[in-house]
């Protein structure tokens, strides 16, 4: 709950500040949309116009057409993101169970090690990883992008462990006395109780995978296997400095699904971020 009550003057100041910052934060989006709908010659006028003289909706279809094989990139991105979600939810949930619902000697030390891996920046390990994927013939394949998610992810494990720890022991103790195995407890009791936390992991992984640039940039060179991020980067380096209306239209199309997804899952999403912070 908010903890401060304000006087009338305070409220006026508060709303002025909120509106000021809200405009600052919305401005890049508004400008992106405005540019995306303008004819090319109108994008570079001085002073700028916010409302296009004619709403040029065909910019969107033309941007899609000139970006390369847009729908293929979208399909690739969706495939990689879905596989990453499946892998991440499954493997992170298993590991989080082992780190929370079973007590074993050395567990917390190993968990600390798990957390410490979050400190390893991707550029530090990318050369050996590239060499490894090359050995495995995974360069230019989607495996290079989603297989790592099948092997747990420290951030997601941390998040799920927090959640599993909050489930009362009494719930699983009864099942244990009845002779239930750990795997059955995991699948039939813990997972169904953790739907919201699993959704958070799925959402985060999906967004991460949709957004990722560095790894696909290094592991994927074949245009047929481009993700949307790679396609947009290639498009902007071809069209950069000129076709801003297309670039903004393409950016809008790539951002839009994420914003829609966010609006449908807002509550879960915010709770998920909150669960990872502090302590």
């Amino acid at each position, binding site marked *: 709950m908010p903890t401060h009550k304000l006087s009338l003057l305070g409220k006026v100041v508060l709303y002025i500040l909120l509106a000021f910052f809200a405009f600052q934060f919305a*401005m890049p989006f508004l400008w992106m949309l405005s540019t995306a709908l303008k004819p090319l010659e109108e994008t570079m006028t001085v002073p700028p116009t916010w409302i296009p003289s004619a709403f040029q909706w065909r910019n969107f279809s033309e941007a899609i057409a000139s970006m390369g094989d847009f729908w293929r990139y979208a399909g690739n991105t969706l495939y990689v993101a879905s596989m990453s979600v499946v892998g991440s939810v499954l493997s992170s949930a298993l590991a989080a169970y082992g780190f929370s619902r079973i007590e074993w000697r050395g567990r917390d030390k190993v968990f600390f090690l798990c957390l410490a891996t979050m400190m390893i920046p991707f550029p530090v390990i990318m050369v050996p990883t590239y060499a490894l994927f090359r050995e495995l013939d995974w360069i230019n394949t989607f495996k290079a992008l989603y297989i790592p998610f099948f092997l747990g992810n420290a951030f997601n494990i941390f998040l799920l462990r927090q959640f599993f720890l909050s489930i009362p022991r009494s719930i699983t103790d009864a099942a244990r006395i009845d002779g239930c195995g750990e795997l059955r407890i995991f699948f039939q009791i813990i997972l169904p109780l953790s739907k919201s936390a699993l959704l958070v992991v799925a959402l985060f992984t999906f967004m991460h995978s949709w957004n990722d640039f560095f790894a696909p940039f290094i592991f994927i060179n074949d245009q047929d296997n481009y993700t949307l991020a790679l396609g947009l980067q290639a498009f902007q380096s071809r069209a950069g400095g000129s076709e801003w209306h297309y670039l903004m239209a393409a950016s809008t199309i790539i951002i839009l699904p994420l914003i829609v997804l966010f609006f449908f899952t807002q509550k879960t999403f915010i709770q998920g971020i909150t669960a990872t912070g502090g302590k």
Partner: protein
Amino acid sequence: MTPIERSRVAKGLLFISPWILGFLAFALYPLLVTAYLSFTDYSVLAPPVFIGTENYRELFTDLDFRKAIFNTAFFAALSVPLTAVMACLLAVLLNFQARGRSFFRTAFFLPSLVPMVCLGVIWRWLLNGEVGLINQFLLPFAEGINLLLGTQLDTPAWLEDPGFTKIGLAITSVWGLGHAMVIFLAGLQEAPVELYEAAELDGAGFWAKLKSVTLPMLSPYILFNLIMGLIASFQVFAVPFVMMDGANEPPGGPGGSMLFAATYIYLSAFADWKMGYACAMALIFFLLVVALTITLMKLSERRVHYAAKS
């Protein structure tokens, strides 16, 4: 260990086995190999050749490497505090009782959803020197100052002037402060009302409450956001690469002002195919990150206040 203990260890290890595999394949193994390759000449096409400490000797005289470390540190020192302060400020504003809070929260949060490449493309457009929106906003101010003071101020060439590129980049990271803000907001809402009431009874005003109640209660969240911010800003790659049009122009930007650690490691490994050299850089970079994170944690140990868990 008793048999029961042993079976528990076995069960635990079985459950975490996916992570163990991941740890071995994508953390321990690459770290060790990075360390080994840093002593070799390696181009991925031929097997590595051991050359002792030559890569390191070359690194110490490599001005570009120094530049990359400096740029990375400078960018982190600029963007991490700026983002944290702004995120905290917005969270404080959102924490007041006011109608429309969720609307404003969403407005501040949405930019953090924008993919890196889109972020780079959008800001490359906004920061355009001649027709970019930012400079068109700034122009009247610059002209007004010139008129009043007779100066010759011009709007910054954000993407071309080495003195401004990193500031432009820092602005883009402030735009994406959503996650940090949500975490601060959670921290603010956890501070018990009784603490504020007690402080008010003692005659504390706004600043006194901020200093002795809000900040101590918020300190674990500040530490978390600082560490996450540091780790993210040390890895900065995609946004400057896109903003500088790294596929056509030098990805290091004008005067190498956007040459960051990740950029230089990438260039050495995948443009020059000097993978051994890249690994030496990566290792030094990694040690710096670890040292800094540990220092930050140690320094804050005394200052961070963890409320007793109820």
